[in-house]
């Protein structure tokens, strides 16, 4: 499994976002290294399809896929939680679901190979 954490320095949520990701990974017993990527220019944001900070990709897939056509931006990212509130951070539940799904996919692929 490949986990990438993309952030924009000016947005203050990235440290808390990394901590939250690590916490959920620890709860799931995951020791996969996280590739931390600093997005600094509009060109980089476009290349990564980065719509705001922080963005977490698991095997290249956004844990909260944005609507198509969402423009890349060097800003903070708004996450809508299940309780209807907005937050600059993804909820632990959202991260957990994405990691669990990716784990299941990895296990399925391993079983098919064997």
């Amino acid at each position, binding site marked *: 499994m490949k986990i990438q954490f993309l952030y924009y320095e000016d947005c203050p949520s990235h440290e808390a976002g990394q901590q939250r990701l690590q916490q959920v990974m620890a709860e799931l017993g995951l020791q996969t290294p996280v590739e931390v990527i600093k997005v600094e220019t509009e060109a980089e944001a476009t290349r990564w399809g980065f719509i705001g900070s922080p963005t977490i990709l698991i095997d290249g897939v956004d844990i909260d896929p944005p609507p198509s056509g969402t423009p890349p*931006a060097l*800003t*903070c990212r*708004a996450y809508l939680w299940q309780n209807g509130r907005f*937050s600059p951070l993804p909820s632990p539940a959202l991260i957990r679901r994405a990691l669990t799904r990716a784990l299941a996919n990895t296990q399925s692929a391993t079983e098919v190979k064997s």
Partner: protein
Amino acid sequence: MNIGDPIIPFSLPGVDGNTYSPDDFSAKQVLVIIFSCNHCPYVRAWEDRMVQIQADTGDRGVQLIAINANDVSKYPADNFQNMQKRAQEKQFNFPYVFDESQEIATVYAAQRTPEVFVFDAARRLQYHGAIDDSYEDPDAVQHPYLRQALDALLNGQTPVVASTPPVGCTIKWK
């Protein structure tokens, strides 16, 4: 701006079609200027609390004004039309005005959204910073900085905490 500095006047268009300046609220004991915007998740996390604070304190002499100064060419979610939509959607009970030239944000030395400036009856800055200490969960707030500052001023006292680091998105400069 530093604590104790006088308010810097402005005249800016509001989403309701009126133009607003601090003098429009000279009868109010406390004036709260909040640099804000549409797209920032910190603003979105806090804006219900802004509405509630105005509802709770308006009768006691507090007036909020929210100012959006973001560059809309790069952040179209913050344009005037979208400001009008947001104000309607969230039923803002305070003026939401547009600082298109960014002149007012510049002279206030505002850096973030949301960023709060609280002025007393003499229109001197008495509190600057964050709304409270928990953007993510209103039930987890331990230090409601803005409410504490308002309570102090309405009771003729000086806020115990006069300054906190504003937490939020950077203002998007041209």
